[in-house]
């Protein structure tokens, strides 16, 4: 009975738009047209309006035009008999409602500045549990998870479950499936977010359970997140509404769960979401819309029991989620990675300066390894009284015909997040700086240290089964044994680091590709060489090599370098041929060492973006954690918006943080010597390695000649500093030639 839905949704859209118009008028009268109207720290203005209509709303006055468009989109009411077609009008009404609500939510930032907390985490103690619009730093960090598939999609839950326990079950089931849950709206004053808190569930970006706001209009934060992802990672241009919405339909696997009675305004929001290809799955008896077309499958499905809500929703959206089956007594999945174990909750703590702790993956002879064997050498959790502290060594012994020494650090690096995925287990650091906390609740559920071994055994096999055959795990909690192992492991770490250091682009004939991000940026191709790690910072040459072994048809493919075409720019016949094909004929030539001539594509995942500063004859680069202005006149997020999305933009290039300290970084343009500006936080983070490079290039104090935000935020401001410091870039050949 789509007619009833249309009837209600159009009614609802009229209400929403009329209220928004009233609110805008009043706010204009009170604050004046020049009053800023914005979400915190974003380059995407009011992102839905910006992406769909192409209008950058900055002030209250700017909101008038989109408001008029909302009014214009409202269709006639539906007659009971001999009615005109309503699907198109219904979708327009939904869009009008969403656009109007975005203005309403932005106005809330003016009228009630403390209402939303701009943070990843809630502040439950002071009652600030609504997070509102994510600032760009949060959005990028989380958006990448959608791009690389670690978050396959999101469920927008509006309303409330019948009771907190049901809410908890639904939320945990989504967490186990790795989906984000975006929460908005209330059912007679009860919200899903508050139900989760009541049931003792941690909410916030860290646990993927995001409390956007208590009103239905807060649903715009979920849609705004999706549209920002399409702009930042997919390169969809603001104002290209159709492409934006189709992009969402095809690539962003989101849907709505409507819990509780669906009124006219909810119906309008649901209709709005259908424009995005996001269907609504409800627990009440509402009219269904089953034929497909605007969404991939059904548009509205009703009467879904709570215990089937998650499974049905995922199916209706057409999403395949493969969930690792890990045999531990607690819930397991990436959604639990960001969960904290604090104070009273701590049952056991190891490492982190309290005790010694170490993690080590080592290769053994195949006869020495009994696959799946887990030993705990020393006391386990059930022998302790909380709060307890223990030294800890986690040693995974692997064996197999295809196992190589080079793969050891790759497996070892996984330990951090694999352990973290277990609910009630917190892990920080790696190698000899590992830090583990285990919660009382987890121990109550039956978690033991041996479960760490079971996790590693299961996950190593699932994700890396192709590169080894057997793995056994030993967990030591005896001080003497741990100290012994620490010494042994440190020697291995040093050997590994030396080997990586010695690898250069010249010493190998094979580079690797990374097209993981093509799910979002279809023309983006990363070429990864020993001296150029991936721009996301997550993949180096060795990782790619292992990934190819693991999945020979996956996104990391070997690229035979072939004939060298240009040693300065770093162009080879093999890399050019590969990129042409992999970019779907969009890009014919690519330099590994230049941001000026045929630079590589940049996807929105990059850790840093470098930009040319013509006046200084140099280059600046900025990391994504730095939210301030930069001398090129753009913040990171604006830079990423204009250079990201798989585009080639000479003069701009995405790269990893680590890459700055690699010898080939922009060597075609003059390399590190061109670097004239770097945010202080990045300088500090890289200080040690940078210092080494400075010595290598023969200017030990070079690091102090690089300007940062304390020196200036424009070229004019930093140039005198560079002159004073005799920065080498000033005397190099012109960067623009």
């Amino acid at each position, binding site marked *: 009975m789509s007619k009833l839905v249309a009837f209600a949704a159009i009614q609802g859209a009229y209400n929403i738009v009329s209220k928004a118009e009233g609110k805008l008028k009043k706010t204009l009268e009170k604050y004046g047209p020049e009053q800023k109207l914005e979400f915190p720290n974003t380059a995407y203005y009011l992102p839905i309006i910006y992406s769909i209509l192409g209008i950058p709303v900055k002030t209250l006055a700017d909101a008038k035009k989109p408001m008029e468009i909302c009014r214009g989109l409202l269709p006639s009411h539906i007659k009971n008999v001999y009615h005109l077609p309503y699907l198109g009008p219904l979708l327009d009404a939904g869009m009008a409602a969403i656009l109007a609500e975005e203005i309403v939510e932005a106005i809330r930032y003016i009228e009630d500045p403390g209402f939303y907390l701009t943070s990843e985490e809630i502040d439950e103690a002071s009652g600030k549990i609504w997070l509102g619009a994510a600032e760009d730093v949060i959005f990028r960090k989380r958006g990448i998870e959608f791009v690389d598939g670690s978050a396959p999609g999101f469920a927008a839950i509006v309303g409330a479950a019948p009771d907190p326990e049901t809410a908890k079950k639904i939320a945990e089931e989504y967490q186990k499936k790795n989906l984000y849950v975006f929460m908005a709206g209330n059912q007679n004053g009860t919200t899903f977010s508050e139900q989760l808190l009541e049931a003792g569930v941690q909410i916030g970006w860290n646990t993927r359970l995001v409390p956007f706001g208590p009103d239905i209009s807060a649903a715009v934060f979920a849609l705004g997140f999706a549209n920002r992802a399409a702009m930042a990672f997919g390169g969809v241009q603001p104002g290209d509404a159709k492409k934006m919405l189709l992009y969402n339909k095809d690539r962003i696997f989101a849907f709505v769960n409507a819990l509780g009675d669906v009124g006219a305004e909810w119906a309008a929001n649901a209709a709005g979401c259908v424009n995005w290809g996001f269907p609504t799955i409800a627990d009440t008896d509402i009219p269904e819309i089953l034929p*497909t077309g605007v969404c991939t499958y059904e548009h509205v499905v009703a009467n879904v029991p709570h215990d089937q809500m998650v499974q049905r929703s995922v199916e209706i959206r057409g999403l395949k989620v493969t969930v690792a089956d890990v045999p531990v007594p607690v819930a397991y999945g990436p959604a639990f990675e960001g969960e904290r174990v604090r104070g009273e909750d701590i049952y056991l703590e190891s490492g982190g300066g309290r005790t010694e702790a170490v993690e080590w993956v080592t290769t053994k002879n195949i006869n020495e390894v009994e696959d799946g064997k887990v030993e705990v050498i020393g006391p386990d959790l059930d022998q302790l009284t909380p709060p307890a502290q223990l030294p800890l060594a986690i040693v995974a012994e692997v064996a197999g015909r295809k196992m190589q020494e080079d793969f050891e650090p790759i497996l070892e690096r996984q330990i951090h997040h694999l352990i973290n995925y277990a609910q009630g287990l917190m892990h920080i650091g790696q190698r000899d700086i590992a830090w583990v906390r285990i919660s009382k609740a987890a121990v109550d559920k039956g978690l033991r240290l041996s479960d760490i071994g079971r996790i590693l055994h299961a996950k190593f096999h699932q994700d890396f089964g192709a590169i080894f055959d057997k793995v056994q795990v030993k967990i030591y909690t005896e001080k003497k044994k741990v100290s012994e192992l620490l010494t042994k492991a440190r020697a291995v770490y040093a050997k590994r680091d030396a080997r990586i250091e010695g690898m250069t682009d010249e010493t190998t004939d094979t580079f690797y590709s990374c097209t993981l991000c093509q799910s979002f940026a279809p023309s983006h191709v990363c070429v990864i060489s020993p001296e150029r790690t991936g721009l996301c910072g997550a993949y180096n040459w060795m990782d790619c090599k292992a990934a190819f072994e693991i999945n020979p048809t996956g996104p990391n493919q070997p690229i035979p370098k072939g004939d060298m075409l240009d040693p300065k720019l770093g162009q080879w016949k093999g890399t050019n041929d590969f990129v042409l094909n992999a970019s779907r004929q969009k890009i014919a030539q690519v330099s590994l060492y230049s941001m000026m001539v045929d630079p590589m594509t940049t996807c929105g995942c990059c850790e840093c973006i470098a930009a040319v500063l013509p006046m200084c004859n140099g280059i600046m680069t900025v990391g994504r954690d730095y939210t301030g202005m930069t001398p090129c006149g753009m913040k990171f997020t604006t830079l990423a918006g204009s250079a990201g999305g798989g585009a080639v933009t000479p003069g701009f290039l995405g790269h990893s943080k680590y890459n700055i300290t690699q010898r080939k970084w922009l060597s075609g343009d003059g390399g590190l010597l061109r670097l004239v500006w770097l945010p202080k936080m990045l300088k500090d983070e890289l200080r040690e390695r940078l210092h080494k490079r400075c010595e290598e290039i023969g200017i030990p104090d070079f690091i102090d000649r690089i300007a940062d935000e304390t020196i200036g935020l424009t070229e004019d401001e930093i140039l005198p500093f560079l002159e004073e410091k005799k920065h080498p870039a000033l005397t190099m050949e012109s960067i623009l030639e």
Partner: protein
Amino acid sequence: MSDETKDKIKLMEKEKKQIKPEEKSVDPATIKMLYKAQADGVETIFDRAENMKPCPIGIQGTCCKLCSQGPCRLPLTKKDIEGKDTRQGLCGATPETIAARNFARMVAAGAAAHSDHGRSVTEVFLAAARRESPDYDIVDEKKLRAIAPDFGVAISVTVDDVETPRGKYEIAVEVGEKALGEWGKQHGEIYYAKRAPKARYDLWKKLDIIPRGIDREIVEIMHRTHMGVDQDYENIVKQCFRAALADGWAGSMIATDLQDVLFGTPHPIHGEINLGVLKEDHVNIVVHGHEALLAEMIVVASRDPEMVSYAKSKGAKGIVLAGMCCTANEILVRHGMPIAGNYLQQELAIVTGVVDAMTVDVQCIMESLANVCACYHTKLITTNSRCKIASGETIHVEFDEHNALTDAKKIVKIAIDNFPNRKGAAMIPREKEKMVVGFSYEAIEYNLGGTFRGSYVPLNDNIINGRIRGIAAIVGCNNARSMHDNAHLILAKELLKNDVIILTTGCAAMAFGKAGLLTPEAAKVYCGPGLAEVCETVGIPPILHMGSCVDNSRMLSAASAVVAAGGLGNDPSDLPLAGCAPEWMSEKAVAIGHYFEGSGVYVIFGAGLPVDGAPVFKDYLFNGLEKVVGGKWDVAEDPYEMARRMLAHIDKKRKALGIDKARDRVLMDMADRQKLSAG
């Protein structure tokens, strides 16, 4: 006259068979008016059809009257079927050559009719663009900007990287000139050929059948079919494709597009249909024929307060403007103006006794109207220099686009002045039905996804998932040789029951309207569960009224859009789609059928096709051509049989596409998403 002769005539009149109205139409209003006509002693086409049989050789297509040595009559006999077919005309022309030439001349006449209509529209369009015609304007600028690039006309200028949109009149003049050039073009290709899906365009190119210019292709048919020229039926059919495609993809399509720009692109709107729309206490004007140009102005004139008060001064309560035939469709789909009826009801509208004036423009206007008008008070007004009627007391008010509104007012005034002259008993049947109409190509796109997601994808999707089994185009006329509206309704109901969505135009659309099939409520009553669900989701009637018969071009655009939306092959011939004209009668229908076929569509006609006397030629049209152009001709007089064959064709195409079985839901993981193409 001698007494003997008088007696003979009397005897003949006595022998004239009296018709039984219930056997002649399924439309109650029509039946009632036939009884009234009988009571009033008025002869109609229904009576003449009963008393005059069609020519038995002409119906076979094998009468050749191209030179004065004939007419040579070559009926197909049993001997020709069983033994060697030795028939030939004086010049040696075989039955195949003769039937092919006759067929070709029908295509030429049909294409000429649509295209000459298109020419008139283009001339008015150009006058409006040049601001020479005060009563017309460029109304739908969005559509103008959408079509301009197809004529190679830029819609903006870029100076120093700054793009500025061009003014609408500037664009319109250039579009108008380019469009008008399509008639006289001698070389190259018509512009709109490129609107066809690429595979279709490439096939046309390969077959060398892309029209060069509209007039040229029609003239060439006339030349080739002159005595002693083209004597190869395959070669004649090839030229038929050029002329027919020039109709569908140029003459008609330009008419549709430019009428949309001048008067607005149709979007869903309410309407009413059947003789019951006439009102006894109002001045009733019926506009009949095919063009929108004058009718649009009569709409304006009839709403003019000055005219309305003039009507009141004559004792009328107001003015009813009702349409008939495709002029009706034109003003219906744009303004919701009521329709009095379809082709076979034209005389019957006058029989009501309340029509104060009937204006006619061109095509499908029966000369008998003059005689029927003479029996009542109705003024018959011809308006087009191409169409005058010598019979009766017909008035001619020639339409001139430079004085359009003045002409229109003149006509309305004639009607009002005639209101007091009504005589005899009037009778208006109660029947009228509501309908939802106006499904232009653009309107369908909008209604399947709104302003932001408008697309044909949902249609394709529901064809692929089997909720919709296929698409049928039911178009064409009424034919006095078969029961009025009957075949249309039977066929439509059979198809709807089988989940086939129907696109319609012309007099066929009106048959559906009168039967209540053009309402959203009809979906639940007549459709299979899948189609009913789709109609409910979109809120549409199961039959979409796309306009007049030149608007069959909208169906070509829609078919191209369906191909472009993906998942159903790459050519119209891949689609689960069939076209038909169950009650056809005019040569335009043959031209339409042939351009659909040339566009890759299976076309089936009711009411026969005059090719039975030439079995080899017939076999070429009905079977041989499928291998050449992908579409083919067929005939089935029984509407149930027609439905069966259309469904069989649709199922054949579904099977070829691999969508004849239920498909599993595809669940996407990251690897699947990475494989998605750019775009």
